[in-house]
């Protein structure tokens, strides 16, 4: 199960990919409930949306892409695959 709280901890670890390597970008997540910028006022409505996004969205199938090197980390059956091929390991 990839909830966004987990996604928020992940970073790309391909060899030499050490900057701008998170957050990994979801392909087609389709959730726009949160504003792009942190609002000045943190009210209950915002916290509820944040809770929804962090804990209630489960990504079962999909992929995450490194914003720096474009490495694709697939998600299958709710499990993200963070393994690298031998030549990609730093």
């Amino acid at each position: 199960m990839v909830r966004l709280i987990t996604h928020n901890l992940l970073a790309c670890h391909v060899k030499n990919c050490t900057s701008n390597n998170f957050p990994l970008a979801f392909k087609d997540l389709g959730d726009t409930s949160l504003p792009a910028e942190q609002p000045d006022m943190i009210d209950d409505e915002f916290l509820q949306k944040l809770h929804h996004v962090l804990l209630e969205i489960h990504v079962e199938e999909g992929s995450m892409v490194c914003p720096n090197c474009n490495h694709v980390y697939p998600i299958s059956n709710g499990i993200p695959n963070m393994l690298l091929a031998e030549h990609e390991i730093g």
Partner: protein
Amino acid sequence: MPKTSVTPAQIENNPQAHEDQHVHAVYDKIASHFSSTRYKPWPIIAHFLSTLSTGSVGLDAGTGNGKYLPLPLDRPPGSICTIGLDRSRNLLEIARTAGADVDEASTIKCMPREVIWGDVIGKGWRDGAFDYAISIATIHHLATHDRRKLAVKRLLQCVSPSRGRILIYVWAIEQDELSRRSVPTESYTKNDSLAESGMGPGRDVFVPWVLSRQNTNNGKLKGKLSKDPLASRSNVTDSTQSCTNGTSIEVTLMLGPDEPQVFNRYYHMFAEGELVELVRSAAGDLGIHIGPIPDQTLSSGPGMEWKGRGLEIVQDGWERSNYYVELRCWEK
């Protein structure tokens, strides 16, 4: 009756290939049977998890069947969030529903667990992103001293440098009385020379896991069938495990008519003091000072102007045939 015993292991040239063959592939094959024998959390680990503050997020590096993911049980579900990392995909499928309360309609009532498919020497997370990390019975599966040290470094890197807490368990050469288990002596000589060359003490062994045909399908443990010599640390009743001459263990198997499959898992059994030394060495590589949290009330004196990262060894010891160490990070 087939017999299996703990045997010395030779590491092939490529440690990654060695682990793939003798650790990852084995766990993928024995996942459900293995999981059926692993459900009772050890007290020190359960206590460690129950002392974490509410809202903590942690990493379980080598989560296996995820038996620590639902803990602590004495607090409301979700009071902390442990994310399970493992190399075995099949174990992760089990870990996803660890501790699930499955009702009559087979509906899983708990929140599915968070798990990641990855290697404990990989680094697929932001530095310092976790409040705590545990690595239970995992680092002993890595085939070289450098790789074991790297695994410890990854734990030190993944937690908060100012307050991260870490608990590590590895299998010990010194086995408890209960299991009456011992390991081959012939590998002593070999590893003593390894120790001198800086490769670390301890012993490399294969530990057989016997899988009957019955176990391959649905993972139900049948009667007296067994045995992993490690199983006595969980709740499984051993059949006829006997220590023969003090130099190697023999496990006599009570088997059905079907020939069982035997999988040899690789272990590096830790010597006394080796785990703490590994932690010291990993911390040293990262420029982390080992010592207690300095008294913040002292504003002057030698070393007071020093700024950097520290690591306190909160406790270390031996429990149930394993060595453990608990660590706490600090920064000033």
